[in-house]
């Protein structure tokens, strides 16, 4: 019999050690933080130079674009890099969104007596919000672990069905939750009975969430997501994930614990999806069961397919494009799916590997240049393990 599963998390120490060594080689820490710092700077400029979202449609769209990029790039870790096929990413987003929303909503009520936004920029309300997003990410990551486990035994279509089922289960479970508790008196007099099922708004959705999300938070978190994704891709851990996608047997022959890499991919992706869910909930002020549904998940899958399996910049471009496109085609809402389908078909025919394949935008330029400079000259040996 083929060995489907093997020990997850065992000999983690050995692998962690080699990853730590890799970070050390890269000249870790401070230089690695520079891109994040630049990203946060850009986020600050965006935040202070553009009008607040309630006064500007464009600001709202910019927030959504940033959040969608986080979702697409994180899904790409599972679908693109590791080669698993998850179509339940919106489920993780919803888990994170609901977790974060309940923390800020009920937390604000308990701390400050109401769900009104509290404090100014980087004030106490902002920190509660940031903590809630991280909590959303962590709860989603736990869900990612649970959903990742079947990926050890299932492949292709079967795994897709499990992840699809996960999103739908989340949707249905959220529909069964109880009505929101709307004020502090009601919350203080609440009995255990009112907490079963948990008061998360039922099929109407969780509304009245304080709108803490702004361009600063969205683009700071986006910067962190992009840097983490890129460093993962160019690290030994990322290469081993890609090796799982390329050839599981050969990967194992190199000592890659494929079970562990698959589950790790699911956990990391779900974490960022959960954080994005927190941002989303506090951007629109509502999050509802349908946000966990298949339709949403499928949008992200399309972005990873169009962008190129494993290309972070390609998927980012696809996410921007596919978020802006429907906005431009507002009046043609009913044709959206047709346009998507056509796009996919054209893509499959013309460029089945996606816009950029596995490459990044700048790598494409480099290749051009190298070809132009010399053809067939000796290639300088790069260092292994760097």
């Amino acid at each position, binding site marked *: *019999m*083929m*060995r489907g599963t*093997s*020990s997850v998390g065992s*000999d983690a120490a*050995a692998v962690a*050690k*080699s990853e730590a*060594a*890799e970070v050390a*080689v890269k000249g870790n820490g401070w230089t690695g933080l520079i891109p994040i710092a630049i990203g946060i700077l850009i986020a600050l400029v965006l935040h202070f130079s553009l009008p607040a979202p309630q006064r500007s449609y464009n600001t709202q769209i910019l927030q959504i674009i940033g959040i969608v990029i986080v979702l697409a790039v994180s899904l790409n870790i599972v679908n693109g890099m590791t080669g698993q096929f998850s179509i339940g990413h919106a489920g993780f987003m919803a888990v994170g969104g609901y977790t974060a929303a309940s923390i800020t909503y009920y937390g604000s009520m308990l701390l400050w007596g109401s769900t009104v936004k509290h404090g100014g920029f980087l004030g106490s309300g902002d920190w509660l919000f940031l903590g809630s997003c991280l909590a959303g990410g962590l709860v989603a990551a736990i869900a990612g672990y649970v959903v990742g486990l079947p990926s050890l035994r299932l492949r292709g279509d079967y795994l897709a069905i499990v992840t699809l089922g996960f999103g739908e289960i989340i949707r249905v479970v959220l529909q069964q939750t109880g009505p929101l508790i709307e004020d502090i008196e009601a919350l203080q007099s609440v009995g255990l009975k009112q907490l079963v099922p948990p008061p998360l708004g039922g099929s109407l959705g969780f509304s009245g969430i304080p709108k803490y999300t702004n361009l600063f938070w969205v683009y700071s978190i986006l910067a962190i997501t992009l840097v983490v994704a890129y460093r993962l891709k160019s690290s*030994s851990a990322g*290469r*081993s994930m*890609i*090796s799982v996608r*390329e*050839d599981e*047997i*050969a*990967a*194992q*022959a*190199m*000592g*890659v*614990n*494929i*079970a562990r890499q698959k589950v790790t991919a699911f956990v990391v992706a779900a974490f960022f999806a959960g954080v994005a869910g927190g941002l989303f909930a506090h951007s629109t002020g509502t999050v509802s069961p349908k946000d966990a549904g298949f339709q949403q998940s499928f949008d992200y899958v399309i972005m990873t397919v169009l962008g190129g399996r*494993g290309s972070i910049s390609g998927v980012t471009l696809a996410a921007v494009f596919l978020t802006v496109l429907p906005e431009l085609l507002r009046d043609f809402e009913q044709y959206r799916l047709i346009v998507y389908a056509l796009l996919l078909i054209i893509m499959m025919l013309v460029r089945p590997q996606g816009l950029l*394949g*596995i490459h990044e935008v700048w790598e494409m330029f480099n290749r051009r240049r190298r070809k132009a400079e010399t053809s067939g000259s*000796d*290639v300088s*040996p*790069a*260092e*292994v*393990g760097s």
Partner: protein
Amino acid sequence: MSLLTVNNLSVSYGAIEAIRNCSLRVEQGEIVTLIGGNGAGKSTMLRTISGLLTPKQGTIQFERKEIQGQPPHRIAQSGLVHVPEGRGIFANLTVEENLQLGAYSRNDHAEIRKDRERALELFPRVRERLKQAAGTLSGGEQQMVAIARAMLSRPRLLMLDEPSLGLAPQIVQTIFQVIREINNSGTTILLVEQNAAMALKVAHRAYVIEVGSIEMDGPAAELASSDEVRKAYLGAH
């Protein structure tokens, strides 16, 4: 004590028994070849040794430790490295990245660099292709990458599954030359081949497997001159 000892091994795919009661051993420093026709069970043997398959019966000892039932990545990390049939190249990664993955379980960076240099000396053509996607290489070059990559794991036993499969005779010559060089510099090799003529030339000892059981074994030169082997595998009439 042998480096690798396989004892009374039986392996099945569901109801199909692919290997029945097979025993073999590989001594430190040897090239041992396992030859046999298509479907004889050669790949099954290697897959079982490297942990991809679980035996129904029997034991596998590597460096005195029983390894049957261990997960494949653990077995690979312990120095028993399998170059699977069909090469198992990571097609969308560059040749360089393929080599880096060979060193995945190691973190002695200075030594890795030396091993990489040695591997590239064995295969100068691989050095010319370092930045290229491995999938764009010819079959022979891919086989070279697969072997070079395996060498970066610093194997104590290298298992090659039909490295000559589908390659032009000239390339086959090169590959076997390198196999001999790798062995000369101290790596023990278990070589599975349908190309019995070539395999018997480089190997010290050989086993002949037919429909799941080992029918003959002995020094490679002796087997090469035996009538049975000549008739069945070397095309003599």
